[in-house]
């Protein structure tokens, strides 16, 4: 009996050892396959990816960009820094906080980490995960706001230090389906239009009933980064619109927030001219691809799109209807005649445990400042930098349209024209940390209730202010 038992124990041990061997064996990646995937041996303790052959140091850059579009970036960087550095691209599956945090804590050598959330960036920066970048600006003789503009600078400035560079700013514009406007006899929206113009266009474009109903616009109020519900407040007040002057309380009960929320919720609940919240979810419009598909399939006449939306006008998603013609227009403003829109940034940072500080700086400088087309452009994003001139901007966007997949059904000329307009950009990012987690959470919950018709604008904003103010007070106390 003991023999059988011993055998069984031995068997299970052997099995687990076998698995261990298998797993362990797998971790030894050969140089041949280190091209695009991460290899683990190079830990943060090792001196970095020194390459014996050319003396080139390998820099490891982490992002969730599809590996398919990265080769031009890698080639261009390696060419520019020949003999000094070369870059290895490591894909992470998505920009979720957990995904990026585990990669950062994994002990892998990381020279550049990207992120889509300003909250996460600031959280990591305050925890001491990222390197301060001010010294590099001093070294180059640049100023942060000189490169990226004052709105973004105000967000990125964490107690006088900077921990990340924006490689792209997702700029909010409105796309519209020209064929639908033509059929309805409604004139195309014009730059400099007002929110009242937007409303009347939405109403004019709405038609039909039941499952055949066509809406004036689709706006995803659920999306956390876009913050469409308080678009007007940001347009009028600028960055950090939520807060009072000394950041000790929120300003959610200010008239401009009420006006903005009332305007959008009335569009949905009173005029019924934008896609209702339940259909946004059920029909997938909260997914950018499906939102644009809805636009060219004539489910609604307009939609709010961050500029990276261009990459979803892809043939591979299925036939775009004959004669589809998508126009682009600037965001309306309260009184019209201005050009102000919001944006949120995606950023790149250098972890304190990077293998080579100077090299990592050269890499983020390349991707965020000097050769933005290879990263932002290849993903159809507006780069974080301010263009020196409209010509420079035009050059960038022309390159972008030439080097990415064909944008089926897009009015390219119009898109180019609108993209290069002079405009004031307001960053909706928030790096003021006290109480912010609670603020985001409460906003997500309370605002949806208004669009659901279950809470009034005043009640909702009062509640939101109370919860947020308490959270801020609590955080400041400790």
């Amino acid at each position, binding site marked *: 009996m003991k023999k059988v038992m011993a055998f069984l124990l031995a068997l*299970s041990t052997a099995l687990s050892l076998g698995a261990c061997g298998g797993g362990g064996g797998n971790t030894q990646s050969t140089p041949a396959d280190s091209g695009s995937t991460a290899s683990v041996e190079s830990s943060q303790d090792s001196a970095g990816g020194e390459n014996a052959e050319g003396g080139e140091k390998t820099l490891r850059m982490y992002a969730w960009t599809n590996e398919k579009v990265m080769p031009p970036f890698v080639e261009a960087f390696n060419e520019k820094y020949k003999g000094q550095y070369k870059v290895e691209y490591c894909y992470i599956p998505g920009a979720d906080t957990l995904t990026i*945090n585990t990669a950062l804590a994994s002990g892998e050598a990381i020279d550049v980490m990207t992120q889509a959330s300003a*909250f996460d960036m600031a959280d*990591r920066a305050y925890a001491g995960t990222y390197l301060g970048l001010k010294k590099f600006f001093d070294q180059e003789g640049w100023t942060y706001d000189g490169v990226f503009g004052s709105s973004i600078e105000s967000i990125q400035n964490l107690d006088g230090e900077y921990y990340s560079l924006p490689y792209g700013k997702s700029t909010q514009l409105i796309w519209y389906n020209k064929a639908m406007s033509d059929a309805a006899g409604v004139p195309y929206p014009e730059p400099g239009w007002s929110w009242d113009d937007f409303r009347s266009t939405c109403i004019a474009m709405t038609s039909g009933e039941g499952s055949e109903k066509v809406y004036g616009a689709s706006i995803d109020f659920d999306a956390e980064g876009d913050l469409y519900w308080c678009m007007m407040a940001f347009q009028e007040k600028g960055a950090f619109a939520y807060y009072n002057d000394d950041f000790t309380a929120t300003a959610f009960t200010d008239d401009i927030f009420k006006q903005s929320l009332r305007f959008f919720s009335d569009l949905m609940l009173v005029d019924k001219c934008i896609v209702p919240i339940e259909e946004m979810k059920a029909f997938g419009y909260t997914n950018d691809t499906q939102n644009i598909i809805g636009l060219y399939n004539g489910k609604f006449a307009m939609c709010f799109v961050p500029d990276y939306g261009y990459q979803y006008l892809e043939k591979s998603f299925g036939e775009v209807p004959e004669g589809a013609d998508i126009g682009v227009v600037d965001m309306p403003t309260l009184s019209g005649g201005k050009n102000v829109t919001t944006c949120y940034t995606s950023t790149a940072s250098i972890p304190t445990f990077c293998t080579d500080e100077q090299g990592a700086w050269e890499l983020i400088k390349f991707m965020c400042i000097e050769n933005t087309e290879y990263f932002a452009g290849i993903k159809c994003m507006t780069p974080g930098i301010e263009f020196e001139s409209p010509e420079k901007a035009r050059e960038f966007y022309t390159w972008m349209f030439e080097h990415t997949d064909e944008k089926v059904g897009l009015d390219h000329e119009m898109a180019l024209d609108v993209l290069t307009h002079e405009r004031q950009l307001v960053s909706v990012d928030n790096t003021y940390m006290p109480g912010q*987690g609670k603020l985001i959470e409460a906003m997500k*919950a309370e605002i*949806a209730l208004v669009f659901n018709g279950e809470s009034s604008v005043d009640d909702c904003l009062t509640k939101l202010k109370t919860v947020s103010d308490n959270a801020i007070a609590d955080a400041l106390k400790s």
Partner: protein
Amino acid sequence: MNSTKLRRGKSLARRRENIAGWLFIGLNFLGYIAFKLAPLVFAGVLSFTKWNFTSGMKNIKWVGLKNYMDMFKDEAFLTSLMNTIVYSLIMVPVAIFLALIFAVILDKYVYGKGVLRLAFYLPYISSMIAVSLVWMILFLPTNGPVNQILTSLGVENPPRWFNGSSTSLLSMAIVGVWQRLGYNIIIVLAGLQGISASLYEASDIDGANVVQKFLYITIPSLSSTLFFLTMISFINSFQVFTPVKVITQGGPGYSSSVLVYYIYQKAFQYSELGYASALSWVLFALVFVFSFSRMIVDYMGSVKQRKGGTK
């Protein structure tokens, strides 16, 4: 003389049993300590800290009992807690009751058992994204199929299902039952195989009908299975997470926010790992009391008895 020999024999036998017992659980126990207990204790330690784990162990900040104090004024947490309890109290009994009936039917009274069983098991293994999209479309308030039927039946104000604060939790419970049914059926089916056929034969002779057999043979014979099923169901329903994350994200408002979803958000979206760990311990305590009360009583009883015996 004789009695000491007997005692020695007894203690030898007991020692033998002890060794055998530990040998049998040894392998499992070691792994269990390494991969369950150790992380659990670690999470316990974390509940007294504030820590962004990207910055390494050295940056752990001790905050004492703050995380535990905070939760009592956290309205969203209290709502989630309440929602979790309500969800479990609706979902668990319904899912077990239906599973019992369906399992008995699928055991004996249908043709094509294999295929039908698979059909009932499918919700448990289908892609959650597909599940959520289909349910959202079926239960669309305005012109979804379910409400269209209700309207044609003369219901004037059909519910808003996932999109209404008053119905979202109930809708989640419906999805929960639907998804859990196949799982429960498998457990009951496995239990049914242990019931001796002779019991049914005897009742046939007594002229018992189907319902009587079900009540007086099947259910009592399944007591150990049902005990297991009830406990596991409560444990699982207290930890419901994925359907909420995919379908309602806890909304509208906090109406369908459940504890584990709330904990997940705190830990992995708002980087409050310490607070989330503290919340997990509260959940732990809750489930412990809820599910294991009977076992704890049993255990206390056995300890008392033993102590009484040695006296």
